[in-house]
């Protein structure tokens, strides 16, 4: 019988996490730079006397670690690495506005201030991706500021009015139960039912999303975070000779998620995870490979 083909691993195809209890998949990631399993063991020598060499060598602890380099941010990565599931929003054919809330003081969002903020009917295409600050500049008028001009060319073009990121050329007048548009931003502020009387300097914040097919949001670092370990299936690239390898890591613990914004580059980040024993399946990982014939 001739020698068999070399058992090689080439490349990386995907990384697929799963729930350890239900074994359901959390998603998958295919834009992977690398996924390297290091299994480093400690060797403990017995030295003594005049011998230059150990009398015996025994094996100590073995640490199994996975170093992942990923180039995308799938939803599951937040749940697995920072303990918080992403909120997935449905498509928004008219854009959307996240509710306004007081920031400094309590007079802007009030029955005697602004009751609500919403997309202006007919101006949906002007809604831009930004965060906004509404500042009372007198008892009945407000200036509005935007966090970024990233999306200012969406719909009607806009520019900042000053270096403090103001977007309203003149203060907007808020009147009782009347909608006031923030010009060319597709958003309107509706006055409260009472007599308008805000406190100058008070502020409120909201954000808007343009017409979209999907959006996600997640707050990281909150008190409701829950870190759950997960399983991980690492699949190498399918070789030209139809040789395929998959590694099922039974229990993986990881924490921390770098997010890089780098000039003219896709964010690439590295995560280190540790494997530990699954007593039910009696092991830390299972490697499976096949030389397919079809």
């Amino acid at each position, binding site marked *: 019988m001739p020698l068999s083909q070399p058992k090689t691993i080439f490349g990386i195809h995907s990384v697929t996490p799963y729930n350890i209890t239900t074994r359901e998949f959390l998603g998958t990631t295919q834009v992977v730079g690398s996924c390297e399993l290091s299994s480093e063991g400690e060797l403990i020598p017995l030295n003594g006397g005049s011998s230059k060499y150990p009398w015996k060598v025994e094996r100590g602890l073995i640490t199994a670690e996975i170093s992942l380099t990923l180039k995308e941010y799938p939803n599951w990565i937040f749940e697995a690495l920072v303990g918080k599931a992403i909120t997935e929003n449905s498509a928004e054919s008219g854009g959307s506005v996240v509710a306004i809330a007081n920031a400094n003081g309590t007079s802007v969002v009030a029955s005697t201030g602004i009751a609500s903020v919403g997309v202006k009917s007919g101006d949906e295409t002007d809604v831009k991706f930004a965060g906004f600050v509404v500042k009372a500049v*007198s*008892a*009945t*008028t407000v200036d509005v500021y935007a966090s970024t001009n990233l999306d200012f060319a969406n719909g009607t073009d806009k520019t900042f009015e000053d270096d403090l990121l103001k977007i309203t050329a*003149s*203060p*907007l*007048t*808020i*009147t*009782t139960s*009347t*909608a*006031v*548009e923030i010009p060319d931003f597709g958003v309107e502020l509706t006055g409260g039912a009472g*007599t*308008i*009387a805000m406190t100058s300097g008070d502020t409120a914040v909201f954000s808007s999303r343009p017409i979209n097919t999907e959006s996600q949001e997640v707050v990281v670092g909150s008190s409701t975070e829950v870190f759950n370990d997960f399983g991980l299936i690492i699949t190498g690239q399918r070789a030209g000779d139809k040789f395929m390898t998959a590694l099922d890591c039974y229990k993986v613990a990881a924490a921390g998620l770098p997010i890089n914004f780098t000039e003219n580059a896709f964010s690439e980040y590295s995560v280190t995870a540790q494997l530990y024993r699954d007593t039910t399946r009696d092991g830390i990982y299972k490697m499976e490979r096949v030389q397919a014939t079809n």
Partner: protein
Amino acid sequence: MTDKKDEVKKDNIVAKKDFLIVQNSERYDIKEGDDIIELKVPKKFYANLKTENII
């Protein structure tokens, strides 16, 4: 013969200070001493003008 109606003088509402109203397509650039009625500022803004101590 003079129509008595023409003899009735309208009350003036004079602005005490400058104030700018900007709301949707409406814009009223009120200057101190301006007559609000003459400027045809809609009554819906009167509450604002009172709160702002313009009238």
